[in-house]
């Protein structure tokens, strides 16, 4: 295997706004990259360029030494040895589930016992052994997604592209499938690129997380790093369910702020000197008898706890967890035990 390198990748569908804009990214050999970002930010487009379905308007893609695509031309998808789970599944309606899954093997000339074994194994790993002879049209949504999953893992691809592969699965299956990915990744050493909108999934699986917005790459880092040190408002608000507050500038370089510092800054009022953005995670918002005044805006039951949306008296919004049922409109006091300057 080898490093997958995206170099200044651009894609313009001719709609005026480029769908992908100047994305440069290195995914190390056998890396597991999660691609995160709001709907329509260009994730699928990046995947499609890596697979070779779209030719970049600019930039190049390399796999190790091999140029997959640049200004002078492109390797066709069928010779890239990649696998993909399509957001739309892309199952072949005229084939049975088993034939769908086994097709990449068939193409590679695998047959007989080995073929049956591999297909059986792949179907088992997605819990669809009993559905081998069904047609995709007779499956439920989640089952279709799992067929697509099995198909992508049945061979030994160099790169696996996963476009929201678990979006339609329930929690249990999701966890099992995550496990499957992890095993597959460890066993095959393939480079994986994983598009998801679920930050928890990304954190749980990936060795690196890339965050995109409006076609641009905002930050690439390891999960813990990106959680602890997000760059910019968008990354901050996307990773972890934090709220972003605007407070008067602190004047120093320290990016981790504690309650003392925060209290000082926030009560000092809006004296000149500009503002800074800080990220406050819900677990760092402590409800108690002292601190800032806030009003509960919504309190949603989440089972384990309540997700609260608080509005500070200066109009800014905070998110917090609460153990007790709370009513809309209740007045509370909060302490921000920790914050991160973006």
């Amino acid at each position, binding site marked *: 295997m080898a490093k997958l390198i995206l170099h200044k990748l651009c894609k313009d569908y001719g709609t005026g706004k480029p769908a992908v804009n100047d994305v440069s990214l290195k995914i190390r050999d056998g890396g597991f990259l999660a691609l995160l970002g709001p709907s329509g930010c260009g994730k699928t487009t990046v995947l499609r360029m890596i*697979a*070779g*379905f779209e030719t970049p308007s600019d930039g190049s893609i390399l796999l190790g030494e091999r140029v997959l695509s640049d200004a002078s031309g492109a390797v*066709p*998808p*069928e*010779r*890239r*040895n*990649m*696998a*993909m789970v*399509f957001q*739309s*599944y*892309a*199952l*072949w*309606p*005229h*084939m049975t589930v088993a034939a769908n899954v086994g*097709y*990449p093997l*068939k*193409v*590679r000339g695998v047959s007989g016992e080995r073929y049956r074994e591999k297909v059986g194994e792949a179907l088992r790993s997605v819990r669809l052994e009993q559905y081998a002879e069904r*047609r*995709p*049209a007779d499956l439920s949504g989640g089952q*279709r997604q799992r067929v697509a999953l099995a*198909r992508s893992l049945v*061979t030994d691809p160099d790169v696996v592209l996963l476009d929201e592969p678990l979006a339609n699965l329930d929690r249990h299956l999701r966890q099992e499938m995550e496990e499957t990915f992890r095993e597959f990744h460890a066993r095959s050493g393939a480079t994986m690129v994983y598009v998801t909108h679920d930050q928890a999934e990304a954190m749980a699986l990936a060795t690196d997380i890339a965050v995109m917005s409006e076609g641009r790459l905002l930050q690439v880092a390891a999960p813990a790093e990106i959680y602890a040190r997000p760059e910019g408002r968008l990354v901050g608000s996307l990773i972890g369910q934090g709220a972003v507050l605007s407070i008067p500038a602190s004047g120093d370089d320290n990016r981790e702020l504690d309650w003392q510092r925060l209290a000082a800054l926030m009560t000092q009022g809006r004296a000149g000197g500009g503002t800074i953005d800080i990220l406050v995670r819900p677990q760092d918002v402590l409800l108690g008898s002292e601190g800032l005044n806030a009003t509960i805006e919504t309190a949603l039951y989440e089972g384990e706890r309540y997700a609260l949306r608080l509005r500070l008296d200066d109009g800014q919004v905070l998110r917090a967890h609460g153990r007790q049922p709370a009513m809309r409109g209740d007045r509370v006091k909060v302490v921000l035990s920790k914050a991160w300057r973006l």
Partner: protein
Amino acid sequence: MPRLPANANSQPRWLFPFVTAVVAGLCVLPLARLVMAGISSILNGKALELLADPAIWTAAWNTLTTSVLGMIAAVAIGGFFALALTLADIRGKWLLSFLFMLPTMIPPQVTALSWVGMTGPSSPLLKALGLAPPLGSPQPLYSIAGIALLYGVQHSPLVFLSLRAGLLALPRDGIEAAKLAGASPWQMLKDIILPLSLPGLIAGAAMAFVSGVGNFGIPAILGIPASIYTLPTLVYARFASFGTSTFGDIAVLSGMIAVMAVVGLQVQEQALKGRDYRVIGLSGASATFRLGGMRLPLELLLWLLLFAILIAPFVALVSASLVPAYGVALSLKTASFAAYEEILFRQKVTRTAFANSIFLASATAFGLLVIGVLTGYALTRGGRRLAAALSAMIEIPYALPGIVISVAFILVFAAPLPLLGVTIYGTIWIILAAYFSSFFAVGLKPVVSALRQLDPALEEAARLSGAGFWRRLIDIIVPLIAPAAGASVILVFLIACNELTVSALLWSAGTQTLGVAIYNLDDSGSYDLASALSVLVVAMVVLLMLLLELMAARLPKGVVPWRN
């Protein structure tokens, strides 16, 4: 509690009875009447004697072999064009597709004669190359293979249009998934593209087969010299010696043709059975194959085929229209536009024929679109068994030689209609009715195959939006099957436009069709006039197609077959 309607099925309750009634009126009634006319002769065994005649069975066998081989040739040629022009990055797609529509417009006899000429002793082409065989050498086209080859040439546009509609419904991501699975273009074609567009391909193949079964022009010219009779030529021979047993004989021969068509249909149903073609998700495959170095050779091949199929016969037609007599070599000295002058300015029948044929062809094309969509809907959504019987009934008239259909229609309509007391015999309406019957299958087939490929969720979403049957038919279903609907309209229009054998018996003063006009000119030895009129018909069709091109922007995507 209010009573519930009996079914929540997507068909309105009147639809199936309506379709059954239409099929009964257009297809069953005339044929039943023909059988009735022949029944006395069948009963007294005269017609059955026919079956003891080995010549009949030879003819049946010839019909079968020529049609099957012809279908294969048509699938090969039409399929090649459809695949190349829809899926590959060929240059000049527009022109190639545009021209490929036209062979249907050249009367089969003309195609046959020009091929005979092209390969025979007087071939200008072969002469120029010094390859012309000596006077009187045996003509290789006078054979089963020759007939089949020309069937293939004549019917390849049917396969082209129908397969093309199927290809346009391919899911894009499904093809991409196959590419990424590592499938070579060939494997992809074999495993994904063709199986998924099978409904369209099979519909085209079935039309090609059935057209071959019913063709008269080609075996008349290529078969009879080599004593190869097919059932249609035999039917004509029966009419030549009209006797008391003729109706019985015709009924029996038609029965054999019908059996052949129905068996063909059965084979087709079997081939489609047990599979799912409903495309899940968005469809619309864009150019999928980059040909690279293969492009130029392939383009050359396409143009070469087009030359043989269209350009050569057309050039033969044009030159025949420019010389004063048959067999006179065309040169600057012999060429004259006298024939065009005569046809355009002196023959008043020309204008009538143009008006009649355009009216008939467009009325049939659009009428059958409406009937075809309704019928197709009922057939694909309704019960399998009844649907199969109805499809068979629809198929038969197209397979029968035109003369049989027209005789059947005369039998039904020569007398005034009961209750109404008016007679449509002798008016243009009887030709229209016969066209509806005869070309029903052509109009229906592409529509049915497109409906088979449709993602049912798209209609369901419309239903839940509150759209009743007509509403969703017009707003959702017809636009979604637009390529097939376009294929259906264009095919029927083209075929009806220079149709001959049905209208031959049904026309009367003032209701001549173009086919009749050309035939009559030709039959009475005015070859130059006949050729000139044929050229004008082709020119008219090209003009209409260009008009369509102008409107293309306002039509649903894919309707106009030469646009991609």
